[in-house]
């Protein structure tokens, strides 16, 4: 009884906390100066149409590096908590012919679509994180369709380590080539032409690294949560 009362009190407390914000909030009619600056800078300094990518990869690049680290830690935690040798689980039924054929046909296409999303992250909606998740969804499809499908752990961990290393190396390259305050500055490569694939400096490279890293990490998570077999990370 007391517990329920406290729960109600906690929910009301959070609502009371948010109420002044909700009362005062008006949808703004124009952008604040910081956002305007980011948009102008993305268009003029970086030659990048997708301003969100400019913020994620360049202006707030250090934060993104931190988030990639958080993702890595969470993946490592999942691998640490679940040793797949212990997860025997129930006996699995084999998938039907339709699911198997469909999965073999679709999985390469989904991986290709994921790669398309992260390579074009600076031009179209999407980017490394989304593309990586799409690639991991292809892995999930394969894991569902083929119960005895084994992921190559060596390949996944190499991909993950190499792409993480390449991300930091690209950041440091900016530091070396452009000066002391240019960590993760992509402008050491030519900015290219507006709306072309090879534009915006090193951003497509950096986002591809993020995409491969996120894709391989989430594939490891899917594989860990699947049961059967064993894992050494």
């Amino acid at each position, binding site marked *: 009884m007391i517990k329920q009362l406290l729960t109600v009190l906690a929910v009301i407390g959070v609502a009371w906390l948010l109420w002044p914000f909700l009362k005062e909030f008006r949808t703004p009619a124009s952008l604040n100066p910081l956002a305007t600056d980011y948009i*102008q800078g993305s*268009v*003029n300094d970086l030659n990048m*149409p*997708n301003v969100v990518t400019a913020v994620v990869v360049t202006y707030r690049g250090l934060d993104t590096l931190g988030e990639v680290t958080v*993702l890595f830690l*969470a993946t490592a935690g999942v691998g640490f908590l*679940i040793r797949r040798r212990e997860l025997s689980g129930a006996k699995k039924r084999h998938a039907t012919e339709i699911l198997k054929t469909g999965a073999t046909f679709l999985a390469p296409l989904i991986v290709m679509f994921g790669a398309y999303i992260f390579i074009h992250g600076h031009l179209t909606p999407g980017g490394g994180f989304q593309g990586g998740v799409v690639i991991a969804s292809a892995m999930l499809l394969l894991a569902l369709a083929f119960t005895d499908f084994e992921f190559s752990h060596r390949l996944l961990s190499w991909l993950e380590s190499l792409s993480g290393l390449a991300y930091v190396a690209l950041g440091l390259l900016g530091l070396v080539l452009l000066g002391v305050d240019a960590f993760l500055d992509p402008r050491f490569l030519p900015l290219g032409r507006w709306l072309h694939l090879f534009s915006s400096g090193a951003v497509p490279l950096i986002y591809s690294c993020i995409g491969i890293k996120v894709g391989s*990490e989430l594939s490891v998570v899917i594989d860990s949560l699947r049961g059967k077999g064993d894992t050494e990370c």
Partner: protein
Amino acid sequence: MLVLICGILLMLAGIWTMLAKKNLIRIIIGFSILDTGTHLLIVAIGYVKNATAPIIDAGVKLAAAPNGDKLVLGKVVDPVPSALVLTAIVIGLAVTALMLAYAVRLHKTRGSVNIDDYEEQKW
């Protein structure tokens, strides 16, 4: 504005679920709902009236500034909250996976997903 209210309602529902439910899986679902509500809230803060996505393509008006730069005239939404939410979604996914792994581990060691069986956690 509607999105903002929906976000706050989802946050409250998520907090309620996390506090009132006993099942570990339901608590994790509550966390997911709270997570989604927060995303909606942040996205709603960044919205600008009648604006489009912050991707400068043919749909957004451009003009030439006197010094040769391009000047963005069309209305776009604030890119910073979008960028925050973009990464927060992936981090939320990873954290949810971690919590589920923890729940699986607890179930393996003590054979229960009811939080009451772990006395030191919650009452």
